[in-house]
C-alpha cells in the first residue's frame, strides 16, 4: 500500500529508505526528511509523564499527492510510511498493522548479532517484509 517506507534512526539519519517509483526517489527522500519535523513535534509534546506514549503517531500530514504516517519506537527509531492518496484511503488499522509488522521485522534485525546498530539495514528478511507492503500498491 505504501509508495515509500523509511526507517530513521534516533539521530535522525536514515537506516533504510525504499520507494516504489524510481523517479520519485528524491522527492520521497525529501518528504521523509520534512516529516521528521512533524514527528519530533509530536513526540516532544506528548511526553509529559513517563506514561506509555502511543507508538503510532498517525497521519503526519497530507499533501495533494500522498499522505505521510509516522510511528516511533521507545528507542526513538522512527518509521515513516508514505501512501499514495489516490489509493482508496487505507484504514487506520491497516496502517497500524503495517507499522507493527515493520516494528517486528526491525526487532528481528536488531536481534541479529551481526547487525551493528546504526548501520544501513541490509537484511533480506526485512526487505521481504517491506516488499510485501509496497508491492501491493504497484
Amino acid at each position: 500500500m505504501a509508495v515509500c517506507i523509511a526507517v530513521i534512526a534516533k539521530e535522525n539519519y536514515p537506516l533504510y529508505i525504499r520507494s516504489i517509483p524510481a523517479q520519485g526517489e528524491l522527492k520521497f527522500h525529501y518528504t521523509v526528511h520534512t516529516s521528521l519535523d512533524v514527528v519530533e513535534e509530536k513526540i516532544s509534546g506528548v511526553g509529559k509523564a513517563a506514561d506509555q506514549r502511543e507508538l503510532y503517531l498517525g497521519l503526519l500530514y497530507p499533501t495533494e499527492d500522498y499522505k505521510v504516517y509516522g510511528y516511533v519506537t521507545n528507542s526513538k527509531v522512527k518509521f515513516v510510511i508514505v501512501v499514495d492518496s489516490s489509493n482508496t484511503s487505507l484504514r487506520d488499522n491497516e496502517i497500524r498493522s503495517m507499522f507493527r509488522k515493520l516494528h517486528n521485522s526491525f526487532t528481528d534485525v536488531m536481534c541479529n548479532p551481526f547487525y551493528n546498530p546504526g548501520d544501513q539495514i541490509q537484511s533480506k528478511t526485512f526487505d521481504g517484509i517491506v516488499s510485501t507492503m509496497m508491492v501491493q500498491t504497484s
Partner: protein
Amino acid sequence: MESLTLSDVEQKYYSELFLSCDVDNAKKVASNGKVLDLFRAAQLSNEVVLQITELCGATRLGHFGRSQFYIALKLIALAQSGLPLRLESLNVRDLPLPRFVMGKNEQETRYTVMFADAENQGPYLPRPPGRVQAKKVSTHEMIQPCVTTVEVQPDTTSPVVSPHQSPPTSPHVWRKHKRQASGGNVERQPSVPGVIWPTFREQQGPASGDGMWSAHSPPPVQESWVSFTDTPPSSTLPMHPPSAQTSGYEDPWKITDEQRQYYINQFKTIQSDLTGLIPGSAAKEFFTKSKLPILELSHIWELSDFDKDGALTLDEFCAAFHLVVARKNGYDLPEKLPESLMPKLIDLDDSAGVPEPAPEVGFSSSPVEVTPNKSPSMPSLNQNWPELNQSNEQWETFSERSSSSQTLTQFDSNIAPADPDTAIVHPVPIRMTPSKIHMQEMELKRTGSGAQQPGVVAFPPAVPPRPLPTQTSAPHGLRSVEGEGLPAHTSTSPQQMPEQPNFADFSQFQVFAVEPPVDDAEKPSDTGPADRCAESAGVVRNATNDVQAEERSSTTVNSAKVSTPLAPPPKPVRRRLKSEDELKPDVDELPQKSNVLATVLATQPSIPR
C-alpha cells in the same frame, strides 16, 4: 605381464570402452571412476573386480592406463565366462566379449555408492530410491558391444559435465579439502593419477545428484570442512569416519552424523550445556572466525535463528554452522531455511511444532500489542518460569518468554518512575464505583470466616477495576497466594495492573496453586511482602478501601505494620471505632491477626468517598 593380443573385435570394443572412460581425454588414462563403474556393470562380485584390478596392474600403477584397461577388460571377460583369472589366460581365444549392463543413469548412481560398500555385496544397495527406476530401465539396455557403446559414450560424457557435486564421503571430503584450494572443484572428476583403491571412495558422481537437485540449491557440502583459523583439530575429524555418506542423496542440506557430532563439539566449546543457548555475541565471535563477510553471516543468522530470540540453541547452531560450511565451499545460501536444518521441536504434540517461517511474527509480540496482553501473559508466566529451565525448544515457552520479556520491559518502564514508596507519598485518589463496592461486599460474603480464600476473592476484582486490585487485593494477594492475584501486590499506582515486584512471590503462587488452602503456609511467607503490605496499607488509606475489604487485608498485615498506624486523623477515628466494632467478632476468630487488624484499621481512615 604377458603381452596382450586382442582380436579385432575385442580391440575395437576395448578402445571404445576406454574412450568412454577416458573423460579427461588424456588418451592414456581411463578415469578410475568410470572404469570401476564399468567393472561394476560387468556384474562381477567385488572380490573379482578387486582381483582384476590388481592383476591388470592398476593397483600397482595407481591408475588405469590403456594396457591395464585392456587387460582388465579381458579379465572381466574371463570372469564372466567363468574361467579362472590368470594372466596366462589372457590370450585365450574365442573369448566372448565382456558384457556390461549399464545405462546412463546407472552410471550416475553408481558413482558414489559403488565403493562405499566395497566390503559389502550388492553394489546397487545404497542407491537412492529415486534412482531405482532408472536402474530398472537400464537393465533393459544390455549394451551390445559394438553398437551401443557408441550410444553410451555420449551419454556417459554428458553426466560428467554436470556442475553439481554429489555429497561425497567424509574422507573424501577431507582429501578434497587438502588437495584443492577451494570447494570449486566441481567440474572434473577426481580421476587424478595417484588415486589408489581406497581413494575410490572419494569418487564424486557429478551427475548423480543432478536430477534430484536441480530443484534444490546446489548440494552442499558434505564436503570440505571449514577449518576456522583457530580450530585446526576440527579438520582432522573427517578423516576418521570410514563409512561412506550417502545421506546427501535424499537431501542436499542434511547434516551427516559426523558433521553433527562436530557441530556439537563446537557448541560445547562455547556453551557446555547442550540444552542451553549461545548468546548472540558469542555466536558472532565464533562465526566471524570463518572469515565470511558480515553480510552473509547476517543472512545466515537470520536463517538459523528460528525463534528470533537473539540466541542459538543446539539445533540452530548446527544449522548455522552447516550453512557457514556450505557457504565456505561456494554454495549459495538458500532464501529460506531448508527443512532438514530446521530446529527439532521437543514438544511434538504441539501442532505449532511444524516449523514455519511465517508465524515468526507471532513470536515476537510487538510492543504495541503487549499492553493489552499484559494480564493474560502475566499469569502464564507463573507456569512457564519453571519450564524455562527445561526444554528450550518448546515454542510456547519461547513465545511466552519473548512476550514476557517484553512485558517485563514494559513493566520496567512503567514502574521505574513510580516507586512503591513514591506512590505512597503521592497517593492517587480513586473513586469508588458502585461495582467496586459491590464486589467488595461480595468478597466479604464469600470470606465469611475471614481468611480462607482471599485469593479466590481477590481475583475477580483484580481484573476489571484496575485501581481496585492494587489496593484491596494487595493485602489479599499477600496472604493468599493466588496465582491470579498477580495484580495484587505493589499498589504502586492504581493504573498499573500487573506489578513487577510480584515476581518475588512466584513461589507463593505455585505453592498456592498446589495447595489451595494454604493460609498457614502463606503466613510465614508473608513476612517478605509484609513490608510492601505495610506500604500498600498506606495506600489503602488513600484508596477506596472498604472496611470489609480491609478485614481481609488486615490478616496479611503483620506486626510489621505496627509502625504504620501513626496518628490517624479524626475522621478516621470514627471509622476506626466503627470498624473495630464490626470486626471485633472477626478478631476473635483470628486472634493472631488482632494486632494487625488494629493497625490496619488505624490506617483506614482517610478514605475519600
